[in-house]
């Protein structure tokens, strides 16, 4: 900007305009610079760079009243979240008491430590993880285009062999617990999971387990 003032001497040739050459046109830029830096500091400090991230989640459509109960899920694992960041789970169908199909449902416990929930899910979903890893390798070697890769990954995640996780919470579980579990499922590439309401017998079973009373 200071050059503009200096340019006055050179510009005289082309424009043909006669200007007073002796007079200095240099202006004191200090206040302007001060202001510029003040504004710069203000905007730097107030601007937020990272937009909040989010997690997409789809909830099931409520079945119309009078419709038949949904068929039992294959390879289902039900996670019951409760207070103090505790997770109980059972595999397969819920059985309120012993019957000809099998014994009464017993809850096992997991927690949010990497050695517990993460390892459990990694074991359960090993098949899908391996398959997806193979696809990732093929994608890296450019054997398949990425659209095909995307489609195949989706197919693997929806495969019958892969487990389906039902997340249920009691009245003590926190939002963080739910998000953490879903996050863990995403990390472990579990494609089929849903957050649903807890059933009364399941709730009772949690309370029994919390008290430490094993029937």
């Amino acid at each position, binding site marked *: 900007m200071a050059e503009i003032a200096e340019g006055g001497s050179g510009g005289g040739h082309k424009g043909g305009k006669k200007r007073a050459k002796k007079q200095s046109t240099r202006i004191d830029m200090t206040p302007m610079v001060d202001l510029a830096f003040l504004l710069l500091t203000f*905007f730097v400090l107030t601007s937020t760079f990272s937009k909040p991230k989010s997690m997409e989640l789809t909830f099931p459509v409520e079945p119309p009243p009078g419709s038949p109960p949904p068929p039992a899920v294959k390879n289902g694992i039900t996670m019951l979240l409760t207070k103090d960041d505790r997770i109980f789970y059972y595999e397969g169908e819920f059985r309120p008491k012993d019957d000809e199909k099998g014994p009464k449902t017993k809850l096992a416990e997991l927690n949010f430590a990497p050695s517990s929930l993460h390892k459990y899910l990694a074991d359960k979903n090993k098949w899908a993880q391996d398959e997806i890893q193979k696809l990732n390798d093929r994608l890296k070697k450019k054997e398949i285009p990425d659209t095909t890769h995307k489609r195949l990954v989706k197919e693997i995640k929806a495969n019958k062999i892969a487990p389906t996780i039902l997340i249920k919470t009691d009245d003590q579980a926190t*939002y963080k617990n739910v998000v953490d579990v879903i996050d863990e499922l995403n990390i472990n590439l579990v494609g089929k999971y849903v957050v649903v309401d807890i059933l009364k017998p399941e709730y009772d079973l949690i309370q029994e387990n919390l008290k430490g009373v094993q029937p």
Partner: protein
Amino acid sequence: MSKKPSKGGAPSLDMTPMVDLAFLLVTFFMLTASFRMAEPVTVDPPSSIGQITLPDNHIMVTVDKDGKLFFGISNAAAKTAALRRMSEKYKIPFTEEQIKKFGGLPSIGVELKDLPKYIDTPESKRMTFKPQNGIPLDSLNNQLRDWISFGGAEAVKIYNDAKEKAKSANQEFKAEKPRYAIKCDSKTKYIFVQDIVEVFTKLKIYQFNLITGLEANPNEN
């Protein structure tokens, strides 16, 4: 100007590039800055590996630690339109000025009957406004449902209008469809979220963005 300015005085430094840069940065930050007012509640969301950024065009329900509900729409036009319809339904009059002012507010957590007073409260005192009990959700007075349905309908209408307009003018249309977001504190009991999800599903809205902080994905190392 003489080539040698040092006549025994202070040496002069050419500040031009620095000033150029400073103004460039000022311009950049000024143009990228988006101003928003302080939210009425501080919420500390849990972190996740989710990579999807929150869409600009969103309708957001915020839940604080105690389960109080706050409602906000990012689009000011949709917000004012929703308020008009709420005012009509609940027979609570708002002045034009109040409606206009409401468009610039962040999320609100007061009942509709207290809203005119809340809007007229100066900004510095809004944080301590009483009663700020959150938006009611009970079956007799389900204001949250109405906010969501009116807000959602208006936001979609504005989106569609803009799309039509762009189409008729043969322009490229880039805006995003409005999305529903739930922002919630880590310590909130999940049952509160469940209630909100129920409100949404009754309105036949099944897909949400849960807002979370960022966390590294252990698989991508």
